[in-house]
């Protein structure tokens, strides 16, 4: 107990220090690196709180893919932040006041991990008790995300899709410029760096394999479409960095990525519509098969596939959209 408390305090203090360092940093490159570290610390904190699923997502998306995307975006920006002090005072005031208010509120909150706390007393016991009976998968978090609150997860998939649409709309070579592929520098990626090349070659198949494992094993262990998509993208981006942008685009062309992004979200929704056509509510998986448990399993498998497709398609599209511009 006391050890985890000390570790918690240590990690949270590091988090605050990192956040302050990000605000202070005027060099954008170090700000990006620090925000990667911030995400990694956040993932550790989630892990300490036994939220393994969230920790995995944060590590893969926050520390991994997001950092690469920010670095790709940095190529279009100057190296240091432009200085303008105008609204600083107001921003600092808002942050300080809202922090103080949250600290004030925290004095009235139930102790962390208290079994008598309201969240542990109301819906959580029901999920724990009913999941084996109604959905029958070992990972209750997956059951909540994919089935009990599957409508929210559908919404999150559309958030990801919308983000992709936004980047493709704004950067998608729209202003009369055709898609240029890459400059000569990026053409052969990091080919000359022998060590990187060898290590990446060994790593990529394992990263992809692990991604697929996370995708299809989400019901049994932490994971699911979001994490799997992020891991697959990490592997594919690594390939793009090593072998060059053009080769990566030859493996998966932009149009395929678009179909993957749109198709995943549509697939998820179609599972819901199938439930309606078979006489249930939207996203009711129980009616998908003759046996309601089998229906739940089928529904969760397919929607997780949809999530994985959209996350993979969108994140890769965003990467290429940034990488293709200078």
């Amino acid at each position, binding site marked *: 107990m006391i050890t985890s408390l000390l570790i918690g305090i240590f990690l949270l203090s590091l988090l605050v220090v990192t956040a302050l360092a990000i605000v202070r940093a005027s060099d954008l490159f170090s700000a990006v690196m620090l925000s990667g570290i911030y995400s990694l610390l956040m993932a550790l904190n989630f892990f300490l709180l036994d939220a393994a699923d969230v920790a995995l997502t944060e590590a893969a998306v926050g520390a991994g893919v997001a950092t690469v995307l920010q670095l790709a975006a940095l190529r279009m920006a100057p190296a240091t932040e432009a200085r303008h002090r105008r609204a600083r005072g107001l921003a600092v005031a808002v942050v300080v006041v809202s922090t103080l208010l949250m600290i004030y509120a925290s004095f009235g909150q139930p102790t962390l991990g208290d079994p008598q*706390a309201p969240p542990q007393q109301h*819906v959580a016991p029901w999920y724990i008790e009913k999941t084996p009976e109604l959905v029958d998968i070992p990972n209750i978090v997956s059951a909540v995300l994919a089935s009990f609150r599957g409508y929210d997860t559908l*919404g999150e998939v*559309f958030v990801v899709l919308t983000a992709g649409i936004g980047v493709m*709309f*704004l950067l998608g070579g729209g202003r009369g410029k055709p898609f240029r592929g890459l400059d000569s520098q990026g053409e052969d990626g990091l080919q000359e760096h022998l060590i990187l090349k060898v290590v990446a070659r060994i790593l990529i198949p394992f990263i992809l394999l692990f991604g697929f494992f996370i995708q299809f094993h989400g019901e049994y262990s932490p994971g699911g479409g979001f994490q799997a998509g992020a891991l697959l993208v990490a592997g594919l981006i690594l390939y793009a960095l090593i072998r060059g942008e053009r080769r990566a685009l030859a493996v998966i062309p932009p149009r395929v990525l678009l179909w993957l992004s749109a198709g995943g979200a549509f697939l998820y929704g179609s599972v819901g519509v199938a439930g309606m056509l078979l006489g249930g509510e939207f*996203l009711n998986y129980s009616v998908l098969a003759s046996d309601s448990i089998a229906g739940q399993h089928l529904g969760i498998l397919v929607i997780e596939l949809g999530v994985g497709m959209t996350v993979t398609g969108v994140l890769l599209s965003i990467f290429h959209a940034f990488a293709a511009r200078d």
Partner: protein
Amino acid sequence: MTLSDHLPVLQVIVPLLAAPLVILLRNGFLAWLASLLTSLCALGLGSQLTATVLAHGPQHYHVGGWAPPFGISLSVDAFSALLVLLISGASCLALAGGRLSLRRDIDNRRAPMFYGAWLIAVAGLSGIAVAGDAFNVFVFMEISSLATYILIAGGRDRRALSAVFKYLIIGTIGATFYLIGVGFIYMMTGTLNFDDMAVRLEGVIETRPVVIAAGFITIGLALKAAIFPLHVWLPRAYTYAPNAVTVFIAACSTKVALYVLLRFNFAVFHGNLLGHSELFSAFVIPLALSGILIASLVAVYQTNLKKLLAFSSVAQVGYIALAAGLTSASGLLAAMLHMFNHALAKGSLFLCVAAFALVSGDTSLKRLQGIGRRMPWTMGAFVIAGLSLIGVPGTAGFISKWYLIVAALEFGQVGFLLVAAIVVSSLMAVAYLWHFVEGAYYGTPPAGESSPMEVSLPLRCLIWVAALSNIFFGLFPQLPLALARSGTSALLQGGLY
């Protein structure tokens, strides 16, 4: 289950699932057509849903077949139905009337992405309107906000990008505040369902997290609703957005945030927090009053018609907030009515602006000198919608101002002051609209642009339909009144189920 049982969820998933298909199209015209048809379909579903709610009371839907609080439920009462009508109606109007304007602003290559984002925005806003779950509201708030940023960033003016960045930052702060509040409430009640929350809050009233949560939620939503002085994102976002996008968002997006604000404050907090109503009044009324007066005054001095109308929107949001801040049944009635009537007026006005811009190329008052003589039909429609915005008897705007004044007089001692402020700001509305109308009719057009030049006949017809709807709902206000009455009683009874 029959089709009519599915109405609440269809309202959301029809535009939502159409979006991924639209972005796969390669042709801008087809994408536009698909979006218009989807919006018309959403409007049809919305009308059906409204009829069902008025006939049979609030509708509930358990997504995934899981009953609340374990699953997510959708709850549609008359207030939600009113919002759904506004959202789908505004989308149809803006898409149908904005075809030419959008073709100018968005190049053909990128158009499918744009219309996909448009449909996602429609779905996101509708999703908030029908949601019965606090976290579900947040998810759809994210969807609609992101999509709206994309729509605004489509503007040809490069300043759209900096305007949208400001909106993005402020909107994200608003959404985060809302989420912090919901988190605190979940911590104290263990539930996310609105109705369940209202019941379970009784046991933990006056605990610190709940009080702080009420503050975070109110301020977060006030940011999104652009209640003065948290409106700083609005004028530039409305001004630099593509003209058709302004028609859409000006008619419905701030109203949806106000809707959530009212839902949370009246259905969840009102009966549970001691003195919450007084606090809410004390917070909202002064802000609303200063918004009404200051934003109207600022509007008088604008030199761009879109910005002028945007500041007018800040003032109008003030009216709605003022009505809600009275925390009485008659106040809520006035607030809901004004949401509807202001959407009618602003939608029509911005549609006229989009038409002016097609001819003059620009919306600065200088370029629009003499436009009234060049485009008599469009200008006539503008004047009618403008009269409704001012609140002249016989128009829809008069109905809601009337109810607002009645509600203000019931408020007690300061009621007369409130009424005085309403009257003064209505006069200011006359002033800022006259500022444009005078130049449009009597000003000298820019050199070489004096020949009459109207927009196409179908567009003129649509503009006139929109303008005449302001008269229609002024003479026959039964529908919005019925919705507002039923919505008010549902909201004040607390629970929906």
